[in-house]
């Protein structure tokens, strides 16, 4: 299925349900190495996007992604809000700039780079970037959706053994090791939901 043929409204609903389901779990992960609000933050953001889903779905895909990013910035707050927001706003702008000829994987790579710049962070810092990088790599080599989903989950899990170098968790130093990063975890949950949607809507 081509990207811009997807039912964005339905996809938003699925993402929101997924975050809702794991809200407490994300909160617990954040309690261990941060301030415990990541679940509540993400839920607030996805609820806001969900409320606007009709308007959003009526836009061309690039504009829709940019709009989602803006809503996330304004509602998630904290560190995760502007980071998720930057990802989607930059992705939307990238796709728009290149018009019809857009290479999704390349645009995604540029959007991820913008997130890293924004967060002054990089691979191995124990953040959502540690999920975004490998997921982008799988997309670039045209992996099947279920492969990408598996990769996202493994990547989130791999943050458990990392030492946090960015965000609140970084103040814990060595004590941050042994806990999965909440941002990586929410990022994997969203990636898996999106992949599953495409899996189900792609003729096998």
């Amino acid at each position: 299925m081509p990207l811009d043929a997807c039912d964005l409204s339905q996809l938003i609903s699925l993402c929101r349900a997924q975050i809702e389901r794991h809200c407490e779990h994300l909160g617990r992960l954040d309690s261990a190495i941060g301030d415990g609000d990541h679940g509540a933050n993400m839920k607030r953001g996805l609820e806001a996007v969900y409320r606007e889903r009709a308007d959003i779905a009526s836009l061309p895909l690039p504009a829709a992604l940019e709009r989602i990013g803006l809503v996330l910035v304004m509602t998630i707050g904290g560190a995760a809000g502007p980071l998720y927001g930057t990802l989607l706003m930059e992705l939307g702008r990238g796709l728009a700039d290149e018009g019809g000829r857009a290479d999704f994987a390349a645009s995604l790579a540029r959007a991820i780079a913008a997130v890293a710049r924004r967060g002054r962070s990089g691979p191995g810092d124990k953040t959502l970037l540690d999920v975004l990088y490998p997921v982008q790599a799988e997309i670039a080599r045209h992996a099947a959706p279920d492969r990408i989903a598996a990769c996202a989950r493994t990547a989130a899990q791999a943050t458990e053994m990392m030492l946090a170098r960015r965000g609140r968790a970084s103040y814990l130093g060595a004590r941050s090791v042994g806990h999965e990063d909440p941002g990586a975890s929410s990022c994997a949950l969203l990636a898996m939901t999106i992949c599953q949607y495409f899996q189900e809507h792609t003729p096998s």
Partner: protein
Amino acid sequence: MKKFLNDPAHFVDEMLDGIYRAHPQVTYVNDDKRCLVVAARKPGKVGIATGGGSGHLPLFLGYVGDNMLDGCAVGGVFQSPSADQMHEVTKYIDQGAGVLYIYGNYTGDIINFDMAAELADIDGITVKQVIGNDDVASSVVGEEHKRRGVAGIFFVYKVAGAAAANMLSLDEVTRLADKARANVRTIGVALSSCVVPEVGHATFSVGEDEMEIGMGIHGEPGIGRTKLAPADAVVDEMMQRIFAELPAGNGDEFAVLVNGLGGTPKEELYILFRRVSQLFEERGAKVKHVWIGEFATAMEMAGASISVLKLDAELDPLVAAPVHTPFFSHIKA
């Protein structure tokens, strides 16, 4: 949860409603109570903005007023405000001379302030930033850029506010604020937890006879959990870490802030200050300005922090300048 509140979700907005009802000296822009600004503007003056999560009163918004800050973007409890709010505040407080952002070193705040600065740039407003990183417990020497900003930002506000009131340029105000930032060190100790209203229970627990040195003002873990020691011994341990970075020799002059985190009575803060003062005295150094009370809290957390600013001929008069905000008045002695 022993709190006076209605719906926890309205905690911040009802608090702000109370503030605007009590203090006509401040108001808000963009029809958003979370975009707080001074009511009176002064053309040609550098605008100074801050922002951060709620739950630290008088930090952050309490320092908006005469000779201190011009605006503040207010976040949820312990939540960074959004880039959007900071951008609105920035547009209002720019009076043609540019805007300086002063805030604490937290990822969420940095990201949002960075975004706001980019948005302001598009509007043609020059924005500079000074990021408070005074908490010596949150990273080692050589890695100061990783340290959290805590109560010491009070001195940065005071210096920058006085410099801007003197109608100095954005570059000068920024230089002086940064000098204050580089010369202030803080260390805190927590005796009990705070309760975030939307969470409803203690963020962490400390045993009845324990304390945690270096804990952050959101309950971030510190550098050591130990038995609660006598007040003088606690101060000795805290000040040792500060003196290691800000040596206090004969004739040196300092400003000191003994800050209650919320649940500690003023009586105890004075007992702490007594020992702080003795330690400077022993070194032949002088505590020239002192503030004791609640300046940067963590809701009802019991505990205290000590901030020390090394003075020089340039910082001294700026720190001593009178200010008047709804939450803090300082009259020249």
